């Protein structure tokens, strides 16, 4: 089955070339069929690959350049169940996004489709690649496609600003990554991840490896929008068309985290795996991201910007799961990715439909306008509850697995972030669909409105796509057997020496004993935490809706104590690219400095 991995890249890219190249020649229905067909075929093949990858590591050496005596000559795709699963979800979300955008793009539709397919191919390549420089190539390719897609609505300044900030921060991240590649190549003389790992097992790690790791991982953390590299995300996701947001927020941000996990367990677990230095920093970055982005989400009134911060918040929780460095944590991150990708995509779709219906995207402006749209309301609330992690709904199972390895002081802030982001979405839902809450709220800042890109839509199609995404996402936690398979996939992913043996020496992995097909249960602690979080989120949402009705003293004290820090937070997210570049430098230097202290000697 080694022929499937290259196809996951080749099919979307070839179709992208065809669709943009034949723009003026073939009629629109054929083009649409080609685009949807390519995305669907890629998704289907990814599922087939997932099936095969369960029992063995699928390794494809491009050009037939197999390694000799442990020296890799060519580039390989090494696919375990985790990578294959990622490809499947990526394919699914992109297919849904393409279906969503099928009817309303009147201009530049071919260019749009081509870029979406390029992004799909690049993300699949990234998830599967086993070569350091090849990762960089896919990172840049998906970036280039995404920058242009973000600026799709060229008639407004916001999208242009978002795209500029996105392009410059992410390119800078890519170049830091390239410098990291050069450093690690100088030390090991290899680009294959497994070979680099093997090579690092000889001799002391030293400053070179620590600095190289800092640059490589920070490159991915910028893509993953982790604090303090997250600033571009809200600018970009607030302004891109809804289907682009679904792909960017649903899967492309998360892909940075896959990169972090891949690099850690194939390469840096070798020199630094005996301690927790690397993991602890990732864990703390994750916690900071979850809390800060959750807070920021609660302070938004622009629906897509709110969703963007909610994405970043969940990225933080997933990063914390990876930072725990155990199988349960990684499996939790993986399951959260599944649910989060679909739910986020679904919520972006719903926001997009609201935008079409009312030409408004501001929570306060939309107040009460959604009354009567019961299907949309149901999708929105179901998606929100799924993102909060109410027991056995949506991200819950993933969060529950992360809980297993984490100490309570880690859990509390993670659940807090979840609650804050969830409260923001619940508050917006209640305001829009139920007409609850005050019509004014000065703590949320000024309104930003924009015209929707969607015109003359086939509304049932949009609603249908949104519903599919939300329903699939909500159901992730109760799919029988999924939890156990995720844990097994994580075990395989974390097996550094097994991965190296499979890649460099073609050794087979031991297939799993048959995995049970039942709903995985979580600890009582998780259920309590999740229930508490749900109640807290509801309370917070109500407080946000009716701040004016709180007792006078509390209300005034709250605004007096909260207003200054809120102003600081708003000011930090300035939308100015020079600031973002500065924060990238600060983040990289500080992360590297901490690792230098923790890992040296």
């Amino acid at each position, binding site marked *: 089955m*080694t*022929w499937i991995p*290259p*196809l996951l890249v*080749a099919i979307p*890219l*070839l179709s*992208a*070339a*065809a669709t*943009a*190249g*034949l723009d003026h020649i073939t009629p629109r229905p054929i083009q649409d069929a080609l685009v949807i067909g390519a995305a669907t075929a890629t998704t289907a093949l990814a599922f087939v690959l997932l099936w095969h990858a369960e029992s063995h590591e699928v390794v*494809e050496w*491009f*050009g*037939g350049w197999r390694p*000799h005596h442990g*020296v890799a*000559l060519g*580039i390989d795709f090494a696919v375990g169940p985790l990578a294959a699963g990622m490809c499947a979800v990526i394919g699914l979300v992109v297919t849904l996004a393409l279906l969503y955008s099928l009817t309303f793009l009147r*201009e*530049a539709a071919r*260019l749009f489709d*081509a*870029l979406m397919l*390029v992004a799909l*191919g*690049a993300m699949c*390549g990234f998830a599967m690649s086993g070569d350091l*420089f*090849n990762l960089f*190539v896919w990172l*840049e*390719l998906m970036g*280039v*496609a995404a*920058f242009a897609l973000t*600026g799709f609505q*060229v*008639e407004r300044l916001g999208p242009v600003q978002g795209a500029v900030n996105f392009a410059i921060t992410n390119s800078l991240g890519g170049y830091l990554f390239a410098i990291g590649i050069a450093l690690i*190549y*100088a*030390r090991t*003389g*290899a680009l294959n991840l497994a070979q680099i790992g093997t090579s690092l097992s000889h001799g002391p790690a030293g*400053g*070179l490896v*620590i*600095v190289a790791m800092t640059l490589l991982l920070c490159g991915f953390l910028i893509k993953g929008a982790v604090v303090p590299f997250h600033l571009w995300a809200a600018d970009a996701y607030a302004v891109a068309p809804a289907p682009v947001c679904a792909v960017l927020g649903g899967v492309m941000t998360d892909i940075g985290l896959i990169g972090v996990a891949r690099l850690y367990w194939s390469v840096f677990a070798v020199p630094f795996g005996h301690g927790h230095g690397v993991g602890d920093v990732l864990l703390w970055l994750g916690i900071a991201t979850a809390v800060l982005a959750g807070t920021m989400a609660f302070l938004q009134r622009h629906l897509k910007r709110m969703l963007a911060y909610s994405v970043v918040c969940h990225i933080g929780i997933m990063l914390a799961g990876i930072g725990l460095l155990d199988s349960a944590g990684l499996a939790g991150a993986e399951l959260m990715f599944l649910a989060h990708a679909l739910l986020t995509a679904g919520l972006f779709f719903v926001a997009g439909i609201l935008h079409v219906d009312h030409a408004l995207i501001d929570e306060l402006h939309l107040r009460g306008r959604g009354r009567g749209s019961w299907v949309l309301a149901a999708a929105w609330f179901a998606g929100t509850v799924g993102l909060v992690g109410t027991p056995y709904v949506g991200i819950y199972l993933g969060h529950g697995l992360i809980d297993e390895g984490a100490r309570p002081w880690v859990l509390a802030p993670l659940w807090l972030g979840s609650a804050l982001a969830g409260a923001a979405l619940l508050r917006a839902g209640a305001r829009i669909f139920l007409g609850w809450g005050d019509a004014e709220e000065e703590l949320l800042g000024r309104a930003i409105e924009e015209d929707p890109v969607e015109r003359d839509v086939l509304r049932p199609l949009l609603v249908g796509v949104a519903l599919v995404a939300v329903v699939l996402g909500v159901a992730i936690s109760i799919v029988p057997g999924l939890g156990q398979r995720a844990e097994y996939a994580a075990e395989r992913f974390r097996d550094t020496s097994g991965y190296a043996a499979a890649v460099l020496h073609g050794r087979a992995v031991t297939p799993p004993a048959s995995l049970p097909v039942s709903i995985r249960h979580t600890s009582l602690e998780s259920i309590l935490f999740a229930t508490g979080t749900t109640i807290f989120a509801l309370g917070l949402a109500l407080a946000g809706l009716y701040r004016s009705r709180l007792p006078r003293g509390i209300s005034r004290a709250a605004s007096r104590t909260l207003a200054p820090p809120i102003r600081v937070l708003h000011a*930090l997210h*300035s939308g*100015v690219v*020079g600031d973002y570049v*500065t924060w990238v*430098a*600060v983040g*990289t*230097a500080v992360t590297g*400095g901490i690792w230098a202290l923790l890992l040296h000697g």
Partner: protein
Amino acid sequence: MSRRMRMLVLGPALLGLGALFAWAIAGLPAFGDYRGPYGFVLNRVVVPLRHTTNVVMGTTFDVRGLDTMGEEFILYAALVGVTLLLRDETRSRQAERRTSRLDDDAVRLVGVAMIGGGLLVALWLMAFGYITPGGGFQGGVLAAGAVLLLYLVGSHRDYRPFRNEHFLDPLEAVGAGGYIVIGLAALVSGTAFLTNLFGLGTTGTLVSSGSIALLNWASAIAVSCAMVLLFAEFLETYVVPLEPEDAAS
């Protein structure tokens, strides 16, 4: 942040980054002492295995051919992206477009000669890329530059046919897509994606190296078209003739 504040934060951050870099450099092998296996193995095996004398091109189009495939698509995606982003710009300025003609025949003659020379060198770079330095990308950019010169010494009208997306877009797609098709051909024949399928020929001649030559040509087409279209996208409306008062100033 105010600009002052930004400088205050940036300074220490850059110092920190600099310290990290210095620490890394202290661990690097001294300049010229590189001992890594990868490149040396390739230097030994690529010429005998692939009959190409330029190991860099052998690496680019065969051993690490997948990177180059990604690279072609980066350029392609950038072209599509720029077209997407400038679609309003182009439309809004279409009305203002005027053609300008260069009237000095001597300048024109030099220009035409340079175009000829540029295209020749470009072709040479493309054709001999896997024997001597050069290759699809370098040749492609040069060819696009030469075509652009045609635009500058001629007029807008002379350049229009080259800007005709009905012709160039499909050609660009053929170049980029062709790369994948060559890769898929290997897959269909039962070997790995992008495997070198064709007769390898005699080392040091144009018919050497098997599919490296084909991939090189595919990328040459893709890059030439992409660059011409990219330049055109930027130039489409920018050569507005110098007006008298501008010329005087």
